[in-house]
């Protein structure tokens, strides 16, 4: 399994990468860690005559916490997310989620930017970014623009990013309250059968705010507004918890595949959401 031939480019700035992208149009694609794109190229399901490797662009790397905002360069790897103690204090859900992605070798290469920009419904960061209400920075020939994670994912592998744009950074505010990322997978390295990102704030024993997003249960991540609303004012148990699960089940749309039939996936989604809510509540 060897990819079809391509010309390889390794620019050292975003501007240089953009000009190669503009020059070659549809024939060019950027590669970050390559652990989604290279397997597709090996299977000849992706043909990329001009491959633009972003590894030498220093401005795309690093985690910068400024007050209550963090900006993470697109080329920051999952391994770097896991080992950054300041980020783990700021948003512990990032480390918790990143540890559940793929395996150690893949996490050294896989990047947060690639994970979100690829638009693969199986990827974990898109749902997490929606739960965190993150914003993505896109740079193109006409300048820079920002798109909310909640508006970014349009369909499987289809996002708001234009072909001539590069996703350069993600940014989000410090999440307040208890957080949990819960994932069910068949084996190490597999995508989720179901996963849930939950952030809950609590005051005097009652939930005052909730943010919930589910992964790999539709062709995009699924933000669950009605589920979150059902929890507000409750102690995240009893009828409110049941309603949150029911509302989640009403908005997911899993397909049957080798992870199981639709009914099984819905069952797992309910179990995972309950676990994530319980854990986030305990941590709140």
């Amino acid at each position: 399994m060897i990819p079809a031939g391509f010309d390889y480019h390794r620019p050292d700035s975003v501007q240089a990468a953009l000009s190669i992208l503009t020059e070659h149009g549809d024939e060019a694609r950027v590669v970050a860690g390559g652990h989604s794109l290279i397997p597709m190229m090996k299977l000849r399901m992706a043909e990329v005559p001009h491959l633009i490797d972003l590894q030498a662009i220093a401005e795309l790397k690093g985690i910068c916490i400024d007050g209550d905002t963090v900006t993470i360069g697109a080329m920051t790897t999952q391994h770097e997310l896991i080992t950054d103690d300041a980020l783990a204090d700021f948003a512990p859900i990032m480390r918790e989620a990143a540890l559940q992605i793929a395996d150690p070798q893949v996490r050294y290469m896989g990047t947060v930017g690639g994970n979100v920009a690829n638009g693969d419904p199986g990827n974990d960061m898109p749902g997490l970014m929606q739960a965190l209400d993150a914003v993505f920075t896109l740079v193109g020939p006409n300048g820079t623009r920002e798109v909310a994670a909640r508006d970014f994912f349009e369909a499987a592998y289809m996002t708001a990013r234009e072909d001539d744009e590069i996703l350069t950074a993600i940014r989000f505010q410090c999440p307040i309250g208890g957080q949990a990322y819960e994932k069910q997978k068949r084996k190490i390295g597999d995508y989720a059968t179901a996963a849930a990102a939950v952030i809950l704030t609590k005051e005097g024993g009652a939930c005052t705010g909730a943010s919930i997003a589910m992964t790999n249960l539709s062709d995009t991540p699924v933000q669950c507004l009605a589920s979150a609303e059902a929890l507000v004012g409750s102690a995240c148990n009893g009828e409110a918890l049941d309603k949150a699960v029911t509302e989640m089940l009403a908005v997911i749309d899993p397909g049957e595949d080798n992870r199981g039939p639709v009914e099984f996936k819905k069952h797992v989604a309910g179990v995972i959401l309950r676990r994530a809510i319980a854990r986030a509540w305990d941590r709140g």
Partner: protein
Amino acid sequence: MAKQIITLTVNGETHEVAAEPRELLVYVLRERLRITGPHVGCETSHCGACTVDMNGKSVKSCTVLAAQADGAEITTIEGLGNPDGLHVLQEMFREHHGLQCGFCTPGMITRAHRLLQENPNPTEEEVRFGMAGNLCRCTGYQNIVKSILAAADQMNGNTSSSSEAVGHSNMEAAE
């Protein structure tokens, strides 16, 4: 799609090889440089038999393009030890029967080496979690974990092995 000159420093020795950018690092190592420690197993970045150390990170060399590796420093099993001077991990794999057919072993040991560089004194759970990207079809992993814990002990200068209790503690981390 012409060949380009790719510079790789492998086990301390710098090589300039002509390769097409699309070639996979594992094939450049095996077929152009005749460094055959990294094995081609699944070739789909699951099994870890092709694991090498690239710029201080464990990577699956079946999922790295030759061109991406241009300029990189690479360590393979050949760079860790040899028949006249085994690395302590190799010694411990022999001692604790950490291999049967041996196909996964170069990847296992290369990965374990990086794991112990980052975490010189891991728990059993941390070893299992840190080795989760390497598959073995023979051993059932027990003796691999035992070997790595024993190597950590040796590298930390402890003479008595604490690895005898392997198999009795919580294995949740590997899930």
